[in-house]
């Protein structure tokens, strides 16, 4: 590492305002616009009356007479609140279960050094690479045989098939960054394997656990194909499926309510991200600093 002095010297060319505008603010502004435009579009469509939505006149990027009609339709004429609740239950339960399983799997593969640990790690990663669009057919047969079809359990039990490999892989990388000596020291201090995991490894892996948790939560929140296949009645649907299947009637798209559903559905994840963004970043970059 170079001294802080030489660092600031190296980036000195960025310090004048015009240069900073070109090298920093302009690219950032472009990114922000591209990333936020879908949100903006969802938001204005949510509040646009149908007349304005279908009109070819006027400015498509603005609302002249905002209305809450679409939100009202979404909340009171569809099962949207129920879909939301289903999505929350399915996402939270499957994320927690997957994290618990992934912590044990990742710790065992990374630290217990049992025979075949490395191939197991690789196999778990390969399992993650199998696309759900192939897996949903055999899984559907299993779900049906277990009598879980059209229940929330069908989703809670199938989501871990892609969440566990993903979380395990992420946590393996994180556990690897925790120095071995800490565990050896705890071993000499008299800790059992379980105590080492609970009192040393997990507290040090909080950023890793948070990033794995957020990722798993987002994946299950947005999951579409299993939810479309394994549940059919309106009361068990999740937001992504419910919005698409019940707000599109034939070739009629209820754009206002569709966008309202998408907007409300993406808020919880956005809020979650904004709370944990710092942990999330350090979780992705790893490393325990003493």
């Amino acid at each position, binding site marked *: 590492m170079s001294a802080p002095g030489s660092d600031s010297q190296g980036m000195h060319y960025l310090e004048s305002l015009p240069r900073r505008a070109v090298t920093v603010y302009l690219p950032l502004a472009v990114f922000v616009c591209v990333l936020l435009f879908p949100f903006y579009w969802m938001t204005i469509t949510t509040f646009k009356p149908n007349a304005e939505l279908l009109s070819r006149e006027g400015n498509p990027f603005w609302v002249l007479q905002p209305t809450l009609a679409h939100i009202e339709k979404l909340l009171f004429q569809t099962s949207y609140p129920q879909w939301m609740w289903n999505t929350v239950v399915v996402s939270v339960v499957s994320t927690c279960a997957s994290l618990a399983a992934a912590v044990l799997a990742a710790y065992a593969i990374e630290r217990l050094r049992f025979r075949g640990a490395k191939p197991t790690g690789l196999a778990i990663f390969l399992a993650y690479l199998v696309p759900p669009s192939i897996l949903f057919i055999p899984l559907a047969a299993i779900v049906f045989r277990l009598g879980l079809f059209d229940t929330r359990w069908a989703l809670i039990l199938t989501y871990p098939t892609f969440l566990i490999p993903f979380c395990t892989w992420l946590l393996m990388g994180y556990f690897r960054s925790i120095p071995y000596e800490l565990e*050896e*020291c705890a071993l000499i*201090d008299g800790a059992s394997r379980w105590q080492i995991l609970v009192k040393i490894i997990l507290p040090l892996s909080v950023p890793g656990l948070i990033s794995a948790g957020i990722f798993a939560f987002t994946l299950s929140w947005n999951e579409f194909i299993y939810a479309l296949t394994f549940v059919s009645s309106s009361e068990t649907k999740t937001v992504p499926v419910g919005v698409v299947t019940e707000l599109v009637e034939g070739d009629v798209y209820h754009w206002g309510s569709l966008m309202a559903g998408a907007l409300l559905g993406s808020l919880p994840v956005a809020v979650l991200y904004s709370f944990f963004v710092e942990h999330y970043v350090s979780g992705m970059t790893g490393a325990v600093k003493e």
Partner: protein
Amino acid sequence: MAAVTLSQVRKAFGSTEVVHGVDISIDDSEFCVLVGPSGCGKSTLLRMIAGLEEISSGRIEIGGRVVNDVAPKERDIAMVFQNYALYPHMTVSDNMGFSLKLAGRPLQEIRSRVDEAAQILGLREYLERYPRQLSGGQRQRVAMGRAIVRKPQVFLFDEPLSNLDAKLRVQMRTEIKELHQRLRTTSVYVTHDQIEAMTMADKIVVMNMGKVEQIGSPLELYDNPANQFVAGFIGSPAMNFLPGRINGAGIDIGEGIRVPVPAGATVAAGREVVVGVRPEHLAVGADGLPATVVVVEPTGADTQIFCKLAGTDITAVVRERHEFHPGVPIRLTAQLTYLFDPASGARLA
């Protein structure tokens, strides 16, 4: 406190044996230093005593009890690691009290023992800090504090000073020695630094390539090295070695230069030998072996003269002050010489 005995201890990783049948006996209250170049197996040996590494064969006893199959926590030992291995998410006092907490000791006792250790090590005002808020030397002390609160039978140190700067290392060296004199706990200390070994040890074990080369007190090893490896490893600057051949009462070391055979040596004429001379046993005078000065390094207390003698680079350390310049011829007298066998390195005289 307890004695530690290693009998015919071996360690193999797969088909590679890294420790070849080591016998060491460390007395109760002794400070024993395992020293050797990197990769000589000293850390592996320490980890085997700690129980972090299984032994392939042999026997390790702590306090008369064979501990081959005893888990680390049952061995009643404490270890200080090279990178301190402090738990980053715990305060200094939690770090020090962790083992007692795991053992289910009452809170009162934990607090008083942590306090006592903190008092000894001067850590009382840092008890509520986290390791990241401490300097290297303070972390080192916390690591030692964590070891002493448990009042174990044996302390194990794995190169604990190698992450510190030179000045702090000397200071901590003294502190560890002082701590040992106070607690009298049997200690096994691993280092690659022979000065650390010389200054701290009651007993030094010199290791090389998984074998013990010699065991003895610091001055025994310095005065009577068993072989060329120990002679070259112990002492700073290192001993000079000059290859030669016995010729009557002298040894030809090339360029027509002769060194007298050490008194009492019985070595056959014509035999190839290696002559060993410590830099501090060379004196500059009006006569003696002709050498040419290459570099002069005054350190204040003494002066190190790097020169060429019969085509070999040698070092002399002299206390008196001389004005030497590179290229100047000087005369050196060896006050004490050793003889080694060039093939086996065994000491001949």
